[in-house]
């Protein structure tokens, strides 16, 4: 099956301001098959953080892009991402979730490997012919792996551009997500591994959707915040009037709003002020303001979202058109006090995750969309046109989603060169 040749899922009429997505894109198993090959196998995927494999011998196993992999830290302290399948006969070499070891041994026939994947031992090796090349029988690394400031990304496309080039304009904002504490960051112990009975692209949209916040998260704003003595209008007002939606190119996108009072800014004001002063000292006032003066939901194409209000890293992958697995972590400063960390975790948990006061409602909303899509023959289109006529779309608009969909559509059609993801393509604006 080739990339989609005849089928069109997107109506993108920039002149009239019409943008629609055909709901078959959320339901069709053939679409998912093409997505696996043309999107997930041709992009950089977040695999984990260096702090999760902190010392030589550390390892952990995960599924990334549908494959079982092992993240390891070898004897020299270098990270590796190995395909978790024995080169001999295919068993998962590592069945554990995480741990520390000097060697990885496949229990099936006891072949063993060091943490860089090199073959160490083969029982009764004399039975093999001279054609058996030990050096070629190590574990295989993923085709590409790069570490951006501790964030490990992999790609199954050996010829993909460098990670830095891929991140493009999103890189600056990724830096802010890492620099916010004025020191090194780490993944906090305790992962949130859950699922949604919904198409993965619904979570892409939802993760940078300012428009849904006050209705879907009504209980957070109108029950929880007053319950802890906060005025919800101060929290939500700035988002409504001053936020912006941003196309970062390459399918990456963002919503950004000025920083506003949150449960954390009231519980940890003194600590946050001290961090701000440290950021000014380290980066100067302008950059410190860009780091700490805004809240951002940053989307890295195709399936990574970072949310600065809670300092979460969240990734997701579809198992079926109507089902995805979600993994989320907290990325916090490494050395700050236990008290501040606890306040950050309380703030995180009040909103995010399967037990929070907001995420479960997103889960229900997205699952409701997916169930609603059973009407797709009668109701084929979702409308994503908000703010299309505006010079500067707000975070309540949907430019950031259109930026995703335009890149998605290009890749699905096999157009791998640069994609113009803007509402107003620069060359057209110049011609006008």
């Amino acid at each position, binding site marked *: 099956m080739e990339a989609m040749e005849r089928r069109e899922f997107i109506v993108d009429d920039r002149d009239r301001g019409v943008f629609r997505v055909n709901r078959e894109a959320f339901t069709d198993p053939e679409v998912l098959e093409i997505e696996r090959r043309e999107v997930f196998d041709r992009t950089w995927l977040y695999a984990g953080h260096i702090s999760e494999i902190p010392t030589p011998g550390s390892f952990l196993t995960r599924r990334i892009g549908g494959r079982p992999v092992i993240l390891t830290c070898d004897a020299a302290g270098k990270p590796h991402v190995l395909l978790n399948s024995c080169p001999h006969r295919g068993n998962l070499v590592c069945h554990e*979730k995480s741990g520390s070891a000097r060697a990885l041994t496949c229990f099936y026939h006891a072949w063993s490997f060091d943490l860089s994947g090199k073959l160490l031992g083969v029982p009764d090796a004399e039975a093999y012919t001279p054609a058996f090349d030990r050096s070629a029988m190590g574990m295989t690394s993923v085709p590409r792996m790069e570490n951006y400031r501790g964030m490990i990304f992999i790609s199954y496309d050996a010829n993909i551009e460098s990670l830095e080039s891929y991140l493009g304009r999103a890189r600056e904002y990724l830096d802010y997500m890492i620099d916010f504490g004025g020191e090194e960051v780490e993944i*906090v*112990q*305790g*992962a*949130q*591994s*859950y*699922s*949604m*009975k919904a198409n993965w692209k619904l979570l892409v949209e939802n993760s940078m959707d300012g428009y849904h916040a006050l209705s*879907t998260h*009504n*209980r957070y704003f*109108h*029950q*929880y915040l007053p*319950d*802890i003595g906060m005025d919800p209008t101060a929290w939500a007002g700035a988002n409504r009037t001053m936020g912006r939606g941003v196309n970062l190119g390459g399918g990456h996108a963002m919503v950004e709003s000025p920083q506003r009072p949150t449960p954390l800014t009231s519980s940890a004001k003194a600590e946050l002020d001290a961090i701000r002063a440290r950021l000014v000292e380290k980066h100067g006032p302008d950059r410190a303001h860009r780091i700490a003066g805004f809240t951002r939901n940053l989307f890295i194409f195709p399936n990574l979202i970072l949310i600065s209000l809670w300092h979460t890293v969240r990734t997701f992958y579809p198992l079926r058109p109507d*089902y995805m*697995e979600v993994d989320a*972590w*907290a990325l916090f400063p490494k050395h700050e006090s*236990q008290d501040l*960390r*606890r306040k950050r*975790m*309380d703030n*995180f*948990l*009040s909103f995010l*995750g*399967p*037990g929070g*006061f907001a*995420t*479960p*409602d997103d*889960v*229900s*909303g997205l*699952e409701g969309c997916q*169930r609603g899509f059973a009407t797709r023959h009668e109701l084929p289109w979702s409308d994503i046109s908000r703010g299309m006529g505006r010079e500067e779309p707000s975070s309540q608009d949907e430019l950031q989603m259109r930026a995703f969909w335009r890149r998605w559509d290009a890749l699905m059609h096999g157009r791998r060169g640069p994609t113009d993801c803007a509402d107003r393509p620069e060359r057209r604006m110049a011609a006008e």
Partner: protein
Amino acid sequence: MPTQDLARVAPVRSLDPAVTRGEIEEFLIHEAALLDEWRLEEWLALVAEDGQYLVPSLDSPASDHRTALFLISDDRRNLASRVRQLLGRATWAEFPRSRTRRLVTNARILEQADDWVKVTANFAVWRFQHDATDCYVGRYINVLVRGPGGGLMFRERRAVLDLETLRPHGKVSFIL
């Protein structure tokens, strides 16, 4: 909560008379029924003023909520808000409400002090919503004290799930 911290919190009242397993089972059966019947304010009244409701992350079931990220780490104020939200009409994850049915068994006293007792019990909470069936399996580790009226109350309600991931459950939107 480690034992030394419990000792620092002033008791609501001493554990006099001493607690028996029978009384604990009565209490666990009663609170499970309140939750299944969505009588959440009555259930909340069983939580002491310094009470906490904790659900550890599934990859770190034995971790400490002060240093590790949990799924739920409510103090009494957040738990009271959770109850109000669940009884309101804007908690979309539970509107309409799930049906739940709790099977609570194997109650044991783990540790008993002058003014508190730590008890464990296994649970299977069946949840039915939108034609889906999910089962949440795990064990409670509860720290109970005697309230002003002499009845047992939670100082800590810890629900440790045995699930490896919340798949396909997706959420813990009702009280475990």
